[in-house]
């Protein structure tokens, strides 16, 4: 297992470092809310810290994660920044809205730090023979971790273009595949079009399909004969069928393989539309 643990600790205030340090192997999320003790979400449940998180502590985390340049992170207008090591920090607080669009956060009141972990070899027993695979699971069930390893595995043989909008799939320190090209920080729909046009990939990997535009870009790429691997928020096939946002994917039937995750992080393959 690879985890940029030092990088995670380096963004935390000193008192919080000492409280988080014993949970290196099991910490999944760190939730910091102003005026409340920190919540350490572990695989087995939550633990609460002893001291209270202050506004200064929250600012400290954001400043360290962004190298004192939170305004420079393009993703802050989407409510998160990616810290060194690929750890994603979700932000909540007083939003700045311009022309009806979220442009930033003025005062931060809570942070949700998701710890990025890599398990090389996790996908070894997955035999992906189809044209397109969709990984389904609820948040925190390990979709990104699996996508990372599957795309790395495919990249040993074929050229894989990874569109990593949130910059958390392959942060520095996580091994990449031999034939892997990574486009960082680009919105998924534009990124898919770009790599399709410029990199000539055999396979495109994208994390978290959350919008209809992303679905359309995937359908377009599938039409060009490129293999796809993507992840989507859905706790199973029935949940996937219920969600409107995925309607274009269902109708186009581009995905022939579904990798369904369970809460206990186990998974099974379902091959349909043969």
């Amino acid at each position: 297992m690879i985890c940029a643990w030092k990088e995670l600790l380096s963004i935390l205030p000193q008192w919080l470092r000492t409280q988080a340090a014993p949970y290196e192997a099991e910490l999944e999320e760190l939730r910091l809310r102003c005026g409340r003790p920190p919540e350490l979400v572990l695989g087995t449940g939550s633990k609460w810290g002893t001291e209270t998180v202050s506004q200064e502590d929250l600012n400290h985390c954001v400043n360290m994660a962004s190298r004192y340049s939170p305004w420079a992170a393009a993703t802050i207008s989407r409510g998160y920044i990616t810290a060194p090591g690929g750890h994603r920090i979700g932000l909540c607080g007083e939003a700045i809205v311009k022309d009806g669009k979220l442009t930033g956060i003025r005062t931060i009141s809570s942070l949700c730090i998701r710890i990025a972990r890599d398990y090389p070899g996790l996908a070894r027993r997955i035999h992906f023979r189809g044209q397109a695979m969709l990984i389904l699971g609820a948040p925190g069930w390990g979709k990104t971790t699996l996508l990372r390893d599957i795309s790395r595995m495919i990249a040993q043989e074929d050229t894989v273009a990874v569109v990593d909008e949130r910059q958390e799939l392959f942060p520095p320190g996580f091994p990449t595949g031999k034939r892997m090209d990574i486009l960082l920080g680009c919105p998924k729909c534009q990124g898919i079009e770009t790599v399709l046009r410029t990199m000539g990939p055999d396979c495109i990997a994208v994390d978290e399909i959350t919008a209809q535009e992303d679905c359309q870009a995937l359908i377009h790429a599938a039409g060009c004969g490129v293999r796809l691997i993507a992840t989507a928020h859905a706790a199973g096939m029935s949940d996937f069928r219920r969600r409107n946002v995925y309607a274009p994917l269902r109708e186009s039937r581009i995905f022939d393989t579904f990798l369904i995750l369970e809460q206990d992080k186990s998974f099974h393959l379902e091959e349909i539309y043969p």
Partner: protein
Amino acid sequence: MSYKWIGAMLIVGSCGGFGLSITLHQKQEEAMLTQLCRILDEMLWELPFQLTPLSELIRHTAGSTKGVLRAVFDGLAEQLDRQVLPDVQSCMEAVLRENALTFPRLRRMLLLLGQSLGRFDLSGQLKELTSVRELCGQELKLLQSDRDTRLRSYRILGLCAGAALVILLI
């Protein structure tokens, strides 16, 4: 008799020199504020264009400066790279503690710059920088208004004070 005259000349000279040093100090502060205005302009162009991370931006802009200001900006970039202090303001305060600045206006402007950096949104950051740039320009204007007359009067006052001291002593 000759000792008296030598003493008198030394007193007048040193008082005149004191007036002259005040004049030079003011000129230096003016030059520093001009440099700071230029740095702020550069930051305002660079920020929305490339979204350069702060430590790189500071280091890049420090390259075009010299003297105390160069030391302050280099020190600030180092502090930011070290990632120990919680925000930019604390980093700037630490750097100003290390580099004793004898220019009060420049010091105030640098502290204001430290407070203004590190906003969470780009437009807010640009607004803050613009207001610091305006304040810096105003300070510079204030320093430049009637500059020649004021600086001449410092020199003359120095000489007059020296002469008065000589008369009193003789």
